[in-house]
C-alpha cells in the first residue's frame, strides 16, 4: 500500500505521468521523460508528502524507485 502510494506520487512528477509504467524495480533514469528537473520535483514531493529532506546527492545514489522508497522508509522510522 505504502509502496503503491509512493509510486503514484513519484509518477505524477513526470510530464507524462499518466502514460508511463513504473514499479519498484524501475531504473528511473531510463524513463525517457526523466531529467534533472524531474529529479528536483521528486525531492520536493518527498519533502511535502513525507516530511523528509532528501538531498540531490542521496538521490544520485539511488538506481531504482525501490531504492528511493527504502531511503524514505528508513528516514521515516
Amino acid at each position, binding site marked *: 500500500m505504502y509502496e503503491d502510494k509512493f509510486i503514484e506520487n513519484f509518477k505524477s512528477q513526470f*510530464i*507524462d505521468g499518466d502514460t508511463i509504467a513504473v514499479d519498484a524495480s524501475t531504473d528511473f533514469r531510463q524513463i525517457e*521523460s526523466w*531529467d*534533472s*528537473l524531474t529529479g*528536483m*520535483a521528486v525531492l*520536493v514531493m518527498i519533502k*511535502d508528502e513525507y516530511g523528509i529532506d532528501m538531498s*540531490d546527492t542521496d538521490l544520485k545514489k539511488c538506481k531504482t524507485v525501490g531504492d528511493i522508497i527504502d531511503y524514505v522508509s528508513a528516514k521515516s522510522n
Partner: protein
Amino acid sequence: MKKAYIKSIQYYLPEAVLDNEVISKAHPEWSIEKIAAKTGIYKRHIAAEDEFSSDMAVKAAEKLFASEQVNREDIDFVILCTQSPDYFLPTTACLLQDRLQLRKNIGAFDFNLGCSGFIYGLGICKGLIATGQASNILFITAETYSKFIHQEDKSNKTLFGDAAAATWISADKSEGEVAAEIFDFSYSTDGNGAGYLMVKNGGVRNRYSQSETKEDENGYVSNDDYLFMDGKAIFNFTAFQVPQLIKDTVAKNELTIDEIDLFILHQANEFMLQTIRKRTRIPEDKFLIHLRDCGNTVSSTIPIALYHAINDHKIKAGNKVLLSGFGVGLSAGGVVIQY
C-alpha cells in the same frame, strides 16, 4: 490616499523567431516534442542585432498610444524595468522621454529587476500615485536576454525570448471601464542566491573580461560573459518560496486562495509553473499558462499574459487576480488586483 489602476497594456515581440525545430536541429539530443512538453514553449522572438531595449520599449509604447486610450501629453512619469539597458548611463527612460516625445516636466527612471520586475513596478507606480506625485504613468518592461545567451547554451536559449510591454497606470477610472485596482503587495528577497542567475562580466566589477567557455559533465555550456543559470537551485527556490509568497500575498489582502479568480504568475516554464500550482493547490482552470509563442520574456511575461487574459475574456468585472513574479536576485513579489 488615491487609488491606482492598471488601465491598459500593449506589447511588442521582435520579428525574428527561434522555434523548437531550429533548436532541435542544433542540439539533436533534444527532440522537438521533448522541448515543447517540458517547457510549454514552441517559439521565442529574438531582437535583431541592432535592436535594443529602448527600441523595443518605444515600439510597445507607440502601440499603447496608437490604441487611442491614452495621449502621450497626459503621461507624467515614465519608468522602465530592464536588466539589458542600452548604456551604463544615462538611464534609458530619459531616452524614452525624448523618443516618445513625452512632456519634459515629467519624471523618468529605470530600475533593474528581472522576473519579479512587473510586480515591483506596480508597487512603485502605486506609491507615486497614492502620494500625488504622478497621475498617468507609462510603465515599460523590456529585455533582450538573447544578447546575454551563449549560442551553445541550449537550456537558456530554449527558455528565454525577447519582448517589451507597456502598461498605462492611472489615478482615474471611469464608470464601466476595464481597469484593475492595485491592492496590497508582498515582497521577498534573498541575495544569498545572487549567483544562481547571473551575468558575471560586463558590469563595473568585471568589466572587460573575456571568459573561456566551459562544458560540464552533462554537456551544458557556460561562459562568464553570458547568462548563467543554476536550474536546480532556481527550481528549489521557486518550488518552496513562491507558494509561501502567494499565501502571504493572499493573507495581506485578507483573502483566501479560493477567493482569487485567476492566478497569473511569471511564465518561467510550464514544468516549474505546474510544480508551484500543485504545491499551492490552485485548480487548473484558475491558473493561466501563456508562453507557447513567446517563451520566458522575463519582466514582460505577466503583462503579456494579463493582456491575453483580458482579450480572451478570461477576466470579468469584479474578478480578483493574483500576480506574482520571481527569479533573478533572488527576488520575488506578489500583488492582488481587482477588475
